[in-house]
């Protein structure tokens, strides 16, 4: 198991390096410059000073090595747009809200999604199945930029049951989390249903039945663990998606999260901010994938053992 973890860890570092490199050089290919329209009005000597201040006067490979070194020390640079703030500061300030919202909606999605999927599979082709899959269909086909404003408008504003926006007490969490989790609920419910149906037709379920086990015991003891394996695989990307994909929901509910910062940095060509946030998102994705792989190994003995060779 240790060897398995170690190998995964090395892959993780390599992937991260590839992403940093790719983002860095892609940014250099972008037309325009980070000092905006003002740059045209500046005297050349002033522009040269500015460039020197940010290290842009050096050859690109030197810039790259310096950046790589900084990233290794946890320094993502200073924003071009707001010279008083480092990228790390922006992340520290904005990410907690995004993370909290992401985790809350992920938990909601896993609980509701898996439950719907299990019920649908156990009551295959009965009304419970059809209604669960109807909910999933709605969840998958209505995007969050429709759900979020509707929830905010009706539940928040017209009926006044919950606050329509802002990020203060726990009651402010419910609507955004719900809006964000709907699509994930749908995906998880459909996958869990398919997976459960597949497992239920396998031979070892018949073996379990031939031992005289009750249906409930067969479901909890034999089906769930095997059926959840494919779910765990997609859970990593889904988690990252939910944590980083909060832009629309953050905008609708006026939540001070990271998604907003990302978009504004792109429109202002804030090199360090774009590269820094991309690297940060990539790092989250890779870490979550790494954790997923480990979780997979814990659930499925076949994978755990293959690392032992």
């Amino acid at each position: 198991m240790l060897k398995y973890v170690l190998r995964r860890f090395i892959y993780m570092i390599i992937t991260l390096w590839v992403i940093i490199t790719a983002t860095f050089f892609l940014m250099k290919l972008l037309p325009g410059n980070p000092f905006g329209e003002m740059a045209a009005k500046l005297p050349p000597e002033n522009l040269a000073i500015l460039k020197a201040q940010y290290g842009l006067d050096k050859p690109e490979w030197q810039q790259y090595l310096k950046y790589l070194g900084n990233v290794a020390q946890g320094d993502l640079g200073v924003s071009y747009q707001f010279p008083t703030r480092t990228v790390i500061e922006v992340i520290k300030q904005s990410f907690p809200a995004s993370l909290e919202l992401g985790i809350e909606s992920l938990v909601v999605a896993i609980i509701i999604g898996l439950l719907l999927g299990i019920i649908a599979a156990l009551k295959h082709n009965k009304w419970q199945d059809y209604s669960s899959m109807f909910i999933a269909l709605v969840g998958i086909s209505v995007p969050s930029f429709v759900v979020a404003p509707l929830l905010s408008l009706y539940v928040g504003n017209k009926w006044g049951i919950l606050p329509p926006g802002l990020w203060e007490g726990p009651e402010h969490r419910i609507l955004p989390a719900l809006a964000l989790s709907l699509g994930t609920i749908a995906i998880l419910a459909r996958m869990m249903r398919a997976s459960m149906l597949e497992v239920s037709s396998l031979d070892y379920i018949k073996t379990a039945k031939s031992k005289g086990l009750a249906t409930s015991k067969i479901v909890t003891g034999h089906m769930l663990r095997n059926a959840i394996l494919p779910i765990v695989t997609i859970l990593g990307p889904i988690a990252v998606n939910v944590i980083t994909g909060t832009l629309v929901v953050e905008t609708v509910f006026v939540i001070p999260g990271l998604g907003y910062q990302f978009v504004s940095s792109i429109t202002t060509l804030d090199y360090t901010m774009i590269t820094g946030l991309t690297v940060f998102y990539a790092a989250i994705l890779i870490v979550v994938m790494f954790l997923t792989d480990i979780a997979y190994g814990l659930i499925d003995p076949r994978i755990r053992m293959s690392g032992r060779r």
Partner: protein
Amino acid sequence: MAKPILEVKDLRVSFKMYAGEVQAVRGVSFSLHKGEVLAIVGESGCGKSVTAQTIMRLVPTPPSYIKEGSSILFDGKHEITKMSESQMEHVRGNEMGMIFQDPMTSLNPTMTVGAQISEGIRKHEKVKKAEAMRRAAELLTLVGMSNADERIHQYPHELSGGMRQRVMIALSLACNPKLLIADEPTTALDVTIQAQIIDLLRDIQKKTDTSIILITHDLGVVAEMAHNVVVMYAGKVVERGTLNDIFYNPRHPYTWGLLRSVPRLDSDKNNELDSIPGTPPDLYAPPVGCAFAARCPYAMQVCKEIDPEHFEVSAEHSSACWLLHPDAPKVEMPIEAGRRANG
């Protein structure tokens, strides 16, 4: 004679599908005594597996239905066709055990073999987990696995196919069942392992005096361990008898075909293997007469119109074929008597 442990009478099982009703088993009767090994043979799709799994009620309803008038009397007191699911839970694993065809898929990949064996023991007998695990280790020793104390902590993927089938046998024997159903127990194994598994089953049968129903299409396996044989075709029993009756004095053209299609070491390499021409009938709409008539070289007009009843050859031997009717023309058996698969 003692009461049979299992008495199947006029068993009919159908599957309700979108395209109609598949009559998989169409009136099967046989009985099994204590300590007896009964082989059910026939080609794929003849209903032998459905018959076996219906005895343990393992075929899911829907789509399968046991028809009115069918009877499976177990141990003289349990009418299997009328029992509730919770009553069946008590019978399954406890009084009947089942061995499946493919040991690569019939064990749960995420549980240790010890946990899988002890699970059944703990369901039927009120014992502690440690005690059940100890019993599991004993069972593994019984089925010929060394280092049983370590084996119980292994997962199925760490064992070979033959070992897994031994685990499966141990699992089915966990609560000393009165009846063991082996559904093609050797089909998925390679030949050397097949022999070991058959030896093991025969050995265990002698030690424990368990009754065994052996489902197979391999006449070699039948010759190795069966006492009595039931030959099935298209959901019906076409011939039944003792092992010797079936191998030395078969009376049904389908049994002849089966025996002829066993490959032999001393046959001429240039000759093609004998096979029965044609395909089994469509069980959505089974034929009115004898189901084998369309493929039978001896078929007469009556075969196509009226389904034959069983004609008794002796007390234990009967065959459902019009050729046995007193008025039928005499037909020479097309094979030498005693063409046993093992020579």
